[in-house]
């Protein structure tokens, strides 16, 4: 399963201690220098004003640190890309689940969301008063995100992931949902899109596979029973 949340947490667990350590180190050095070299003697000092070797070595160390961080980031990006690809050809882990990945087409509009499930022929959409609900099964879901007007951004904080929705363009990505849950306002528009941007949320409901199939069937039956709106 594509676990963007775990990937985010893993990467953060490396970046955060490094950043914290550097912050404390420099804060400590600053305090030490100020307290140690505070002086009321107003003659200029003739301390050293250059140390090319030390600076060169230090620059080299910084470059190595930067390279290390870039390597970690690239590894996670490769993992994400591989996860998405493995998924499209339905191999290995995914097929053993015996439940193929489903597709959801997401259309953003000022200020609402529409979720189309092409395989099931059903659509979830909000109204002026009701927040739309994104219903997904446990496991991988392939999204294709677009917009009918301005730029929006499809953001599910729980998944630690977002992608912009552009008009006349599809952004495709795969997200894995690990367990059944319901998150009120669990999806948001993250790109400023005008007057009611603040309210452009959607709820997220994750169902286990059987429950999802039941929900999709009943939803489809209900839609077929009524004339199209």
């Amino acid at each position, binding site marked *: 399963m594509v676990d963007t949340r775990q990937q985010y947490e893993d990467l953060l667990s490396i970046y955060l201690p490094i950043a914290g350590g550097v912050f404390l180190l420099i804060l400590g050095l600053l305090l030490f220098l100020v307290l140690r*070299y505070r002086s009321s003697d107003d003659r*200029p000092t003739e301390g050293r004003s250059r140390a090319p070797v030390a600076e060169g070595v230090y620059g080299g160390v910084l470059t190595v640190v930067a390279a290390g961080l870039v390597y970690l980031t690239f590894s996670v990006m490769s993992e994400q890309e591989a996860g998405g690809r493995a998924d499209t050809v339905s191999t290995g882990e995914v097929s053993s689940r015996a439940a193929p990945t489903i597709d959801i087409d997401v259309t953003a509009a000022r200020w609402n969301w529409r979720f189309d499930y092409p395989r099931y022929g059903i659509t979830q959409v909000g109204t002026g008063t009701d927040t739309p609900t994104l219903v997904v099964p446990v496991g991988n879901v392939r999204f294709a995100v677009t917009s009918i007007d301005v730029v929006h951004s499809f953001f599910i904080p729980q998944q630690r*992931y977002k992608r912009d929705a552009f008009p006349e363009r599809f952004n495709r990505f795969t997200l894995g949902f690990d367990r059944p849950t319901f998150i009120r306002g669990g999806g948001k528009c993250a790109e400023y899109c005008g007057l009611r941007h603040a309210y452009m949320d959607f709820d997220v409901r994750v169902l286990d596979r059987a429950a999802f199939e039941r929900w999709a069937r009943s939803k489809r039956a209900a839609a077929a029973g009524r004339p199209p709106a």
Partner: protein
Amino acid sequence: MTTLAAPPRRRPGALSLLGLFGSTDHKHIGLVTGLTAFSFFLIGGLLALLMRTELASSGLQVLGDDTYNQVFTMHGSTMFYLFAAPLAVAVGVYLVPLQIGAAEIVWPRLALFGYWLFLSGGLIMYAGFLTADGAAKAAWTAFDPLSDSVATPETGMDFWIIGVVLATLATMIWAACVLATIVRRRAPGMTMLRIPVFTWGMTVTCLLVLTAFPALLVAMTLLYIDRHLGGVFTEPGGPIVYQHLFWFYGHPVVYVVFFPFLAAALEAIAVCSRKRFFGYHAMALSLLLFTALSMSVWAHHMFVTGAVSNRYFSLVSTALLVPAGIEYFDSLATMWRGRIVVRTSFLFALGFLMLFLIGGLTGIFIGSPPLDYHVHDTYFIVAHFHYTLIGGTVFGMFAGIYHWFPKATGRVLDEGLGKINWLLLVIGTLLTFIPQFFLGHQGMPRRISDYPAYEGWGGLNTLSTIGAFFIFAGVLVFLVNVARSLRLGRVAGDDPWDGHTLEWATTSPPPRHNFEALPPVRSYAPVLDLREERVQERERAGAAARGFPPSEDR
């Protein structure tokens, strides 16, 4: 002047207000621009207070959605287009000729013309509030299609575009003047590797302005045509083209508003450490590396668009930590074995190092796409760039003001009030923006007028709002300090701090053509050279008097 006229109330040599706004003296242009930009800073700050007040708790209390959108748009636009970028170059207009021993800036009339463009731009942008539908409301980035004539048909948006163009053009004009001055008007003996640290900061700033800002002028012109004639960004991919144009300006501009203030903080550190700036050549090299990299990283603002090479932009963005690390090394090494006197300018420089560090380190986080996918366009980003802009720009600006105020006015700012000013700003900046990192991590998007109570973001937002009022109080103390010190402040004399560079070798304020005579320039700290020579001579004389041979080591 006839003898019959009433004697003028002002001192001889002082200018009338009109004279000040029409003078081609680079010091007057720099001061007037600085004052105007600072006024926009105050207005932009008040807009921020409105936003923080609205966001203190869930629900709409003070502003409506539409007003909130205007307020945050104008806050960001004011701070970048009308405060930080113009101020960054204006400090160069004032200081660079003094630092390099020039009598004048190159093209002074053009620079004055720039001031009037800038002022007109600001007034036109704000005139949007007078239109029926209010000021611009498409954020300071004005992404297409949100900014097009369908999504935002209001006149305020057109006023905004014109204002941005005028203010940006002005900034480019000043950058051309300052860069030409650095290239052509340096004092005898001052090679490019002897220009002061601050002048290095201005050199790279002007290079960035002249290479990156044209992209914004292009974007604004195309946007204006698109709004009135149509057909520019309407092709598929048009919105992405706009974002490229915008960020090709929009990323370098954050370095434009960083370098001069970084350099001001570095000068304050060297002078207050009573020591020659450490690692001058490394500093110059790293500033140039910084400049080159900062021109190459723009699309890290577009990681979540799915339309750019995230790997390339992640690589070059992370590489920025190398020049940044070298600047930190140089500033710490300058203090090492110094004789530090903790003045307000020094405290602000320390605040700069500490607070900018938070912005810089979190910047490394968001240079990593998998981390950015989550925090992009959330309050995490808001917190990150406010640490670079308040920690960097504002703290550096105050370090510079406390350092150079005596040079410009002839009086020293009060140190007691200065320290209160500093403390309030430090507390305010920590309290306002640390909670926003957590809010962003929890998924609170930026640019929202309201948030639902069930999200549980109220507490952190309240803290953040309280912090904003600390910043407000800090700025008020500063204004009181200026008002008081202009009348009652200690008289500065030529060189109140034992400065290192040429501006301290003339009167405060300097005369019309800056210098009566110039000391010889043999390094990047000519005034410090003179002082060291005097100290050595005194010591030699003392040693000779006591019968010791003169010391040879240096």
